[in-house]
């Protein structure tokens, strides 16, 4: 295999694995956070605005890692710097 085939192969496989793991773990974490928030709202309906706001901020924080994984896999597929380097060569 020449280097450009290896780069394409590794990039696509890595992008898939990145999205798989990076989509799985934050989803579990967000599910746990939402479950806890719902339990808290059911116990104390009066403080639901505060809980909802904090929940949204926390969900955004958790989702950041998923967004990182997504951006990296998009870079690997559509704007791969190594691929571009060897194509230009």
């Amino acid at each position, binding site marked *: 295999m020449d280097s450009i085939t290896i780069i394409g192969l590794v990039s696509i496989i890595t992008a898939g694995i990145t999205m798989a793991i990076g989509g799985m773990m934050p989803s579990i974490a967000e599910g746990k956070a939402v479950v806890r928030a719902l339990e808290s709202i059911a116990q104390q309906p009066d403080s639901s605005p505060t809980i909802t706001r904090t929940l949204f901020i926390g969900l955004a924080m958790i989702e*950041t890692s998923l*967004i*990182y994984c997504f951006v990296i896999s998009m870079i690997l597929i*559509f704007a791969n710097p190594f691929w571009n380097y060897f194509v230009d060569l």
Partner: protein
Amino acid sequence: MRLSPDQIVFWEYGFIHINLTIVTTWALMILLVVGAWLITRNMKSEIKRSRWQNILEMIVLIIRDQIKEIGLKEPDKYLGFIGTLFLFIAVSSLFTIVPWYEPPTGSLSTTAALALSVLISVPVFGIAESGFKAYLRSLAQPNFLMLPLNIMGEISRTISLAFRLFGNMMSGGLIASILISIAPFFFPIIMDALGLLTGMLQAYIFAILAAVYIAAGMQNEERKTVKSGSEKELDTQI
């Protein structure tokens, strides 16, 4: 495939590029400014007033209440900055219902600029509120050894602020354009509707996080007063 509206360049001279992001940003800015000027031109305080003034007052009051709930005591000082961030991101994602429109927040340059303005505004508001020394002390919060870690935290949360907005807006457009090539008629509309929801949510989260960071940059004084207050309560209870 295009990842961002940066890649459509209209005009180019040296290092100056006029691309779709800049054009859309300026169009949105003109729209917001002219709209706000038209609405606030003749405001009335009577019972009967224009519907636009009503909706603008609602938006401003909601943003103010949210800022106050975060813990900033005088929301009017920060209303201009945080409200502008929210309105710009919200309007730029709301306009995706217009065909061939691409949100300028789907480009990393725009979101990096917004996040940089948050990075600069945190020390500016903190110094204006509690003075230069108190702000430096809040950077070296638990002890002096944590100073580099705190500075790194400021920078990394700016990067995460930029990438969160960029990733969300870009993924919306990308998923719609991939689905157009697979299932052309129905599914892109659903994903666009979902994209509207995420866009509003991201605008809310960006503004709230900016408010939280600003509040964290100036909490030094307030925390002491709160602590002494609770100690007093404990004393009276005993």
